[in-house]
């Protein structure tokens, strides 16, 4: 016990000494930030220059690193308290990812990238830092999201959609989340003074409603790279929060009887149907909306390799080593956009709010379309599966299954929810293509 108290005291002492000395030395030599010269130096002067290279000094004296053009209170704030706040937020992301299992595959790398990008002096997110190198390698040009999409294609079985194509309409309806949020962002810009989103910005934010990570990153990096950090964090956070966001909306819009509806077993799907599917989808996309073909094409490529059954070693690579490597790089690079001076702006709060609205609208539209379809169609359709139309594969489908089970534990909705779920991915990619063809 006493032993540990001693440690605490000791560590406090060391820390305070460092801080005090640093502050002193910083005040004494504030204007000595020029490159260290190699003339004969005393140990004392060396110690002083060392103090100026510590992070403690960096946080306390943000102005010494600011370039002349941004020497103002705002950058001062973002370089001192701002950075500390962001580091705290990143550690919060670690907590959510590890303890609460919030999309850890992306939020851990993004959070770590954010932490690294807020370190003073080191400039890890700068053009010569490794985050900057990764960013220009594959985020700026959109390559990494495309490669992820190939992996998603290789991992996705479109069988449930092929077996019951009409569920695609649920995936279409859920995209109201995207375009509704676009309107919302414009309204916010027009009605408030603090928030000023361009149409490109608004479009990039609205794609959060697509509930699809790579699509959001692809559009974000094309239309609004300065908002990419907030968009990525919002998109992945809400995808992780699907089990909390969706159920109340689903329950509010459906009656208990509707939630108990049982659906017929899916028909068997011919192997050729699965092979033809990616090719058909791509041709359709070429005819109707070429602007969506980079995303849809990557998805179809991965899926064609998967279903062809003749290139298993490539499929396996897409599903594992390639998608994993790219996920690591992409997460870290996107994290570099969590630097305080980019992230700690009022726009970020607006993005968080708009993203939540987008998810809610998408879920509601999907469920309502499910009710409509159930009435129009001869076969029974449980409206709950409409909620899976937002994408967030496969989390949203699982949520549907769980809400269905809560009402009637003998009701198995998972495979039925996969149809709208994967068509939600296609719908979001189509919406992304529309946004690109209008705004890019």
């Amino acid at each position, binding site marked *: 016990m006493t032993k540990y108290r001693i440690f605490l005291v000791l560590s406090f002492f060391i820390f305070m000494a460092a801080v005090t000395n640093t502050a002193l030395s910083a005040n004494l030599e504030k204007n000595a930030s020029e490159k260290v010269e190699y003339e004969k130096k005393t140990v004392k002067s060396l110690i002083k220059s060392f103090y100026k290279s510590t992070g403690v000094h960096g946080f306390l004296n943000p102005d010494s690193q600011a370039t002349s053009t941004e020497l103002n209170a705002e950058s001062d704030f973002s370089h001192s308290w701002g950075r500390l706040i962001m580091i705290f937020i990143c550690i919060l992301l670690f907590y959510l990812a590890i303890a609460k299992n919030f999309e850890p595959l992306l939020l851990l790398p993004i959070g770590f990238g954010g932490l690294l990008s807020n370190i003073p002096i080191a400039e890890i997110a700068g053009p010569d830092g490794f985050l900057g190198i990764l960013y220009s390698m594959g985020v700026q040009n959109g390559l990494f999201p495309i490669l992820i999409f190939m992996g998603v294609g290789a991992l996705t*079985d479109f*069988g*449930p*959609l*092929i*077996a019951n*194509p*009409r569920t*695609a*309409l649920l*995936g*279409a309806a859920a*995209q*109201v989340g*995207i*375009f*509704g949020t*676009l*309107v919302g962002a*414009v*309204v916010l*810009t*027009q009605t408030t003074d603090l928030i000023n989103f361009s*149409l490109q910005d*608004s479009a990039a934010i609205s794609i959060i409603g697509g509930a699809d990570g790579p699509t959001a990153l692809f559009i974000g990096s094309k239309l609004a790279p300065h908002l990419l950090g907030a968009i990525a964090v919002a998109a992945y956070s809400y995808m992780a929060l699907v089990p909390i966001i969706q159920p109340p909306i689903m329950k509010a819009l459906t009656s208990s009887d509707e939630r108990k509806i049982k659906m017929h077993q*899916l028909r*068997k*799907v*011919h*192997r*050729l*149907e*699965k092979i*033809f*599917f990616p090719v*058909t*989808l791509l041709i*359709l*996309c070429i005819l*109707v*909306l070429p602007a969506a073909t980079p995303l849809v094409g990557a998805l179809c490529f991965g899926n064609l390799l*998967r*279903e062809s*059954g*003749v*290139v*298993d*070693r490539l*499929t396996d690579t897409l599903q594992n080593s390639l998608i994993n490597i790219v996920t690591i790089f992409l997460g870290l690079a996107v994290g570099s956009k969590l630097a305080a001076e980019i992230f700690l702006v009022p726009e970020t709060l607006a993005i968080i709010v708009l993203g939540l609205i987008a998810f809610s609208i998408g879920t509601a539209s999907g469920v309502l379309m499910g009710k409509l379809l159930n009435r129009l169609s001869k076969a029974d359709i449980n409206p709950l599966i409409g909620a899976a139309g937002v994408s967030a594969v496969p989390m949203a489908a699982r949520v549907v299954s769980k809400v269905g089970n809560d009402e009637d534990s003998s009701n198995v909705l998972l*495979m039925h929810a996969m149809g709208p779920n994967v*068509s939600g991915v*296609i*719908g979001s990619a*189509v*919406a992304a293509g*529309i*946004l690109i063809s*209008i705004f890019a």
Partner: protein
Amino acid sequence: MIGESINFMIIGMSVVFLFLIIMVVVLRCQGYVINRLFENGAVDTQEDNNPADTTSDLTDAKKIAIISEAVKQHIQQNR
């Protein structure tokens, strides 16, 4: 600008629905045709969709090894 954004919403949702409706129609036609022409190939979802990569060439990495092994055994057995 708000009016315009509502226009974007209308056209956007129309295209999304148009696209997916066409997709539904095409998928149904395709499914109908395929199941007529090739009746015996229907499979359950998530079954048989990865038939072993028996013949592709650069692949299966160690084909050469496997083949030489097979040949060896074949020869030894036939002695």
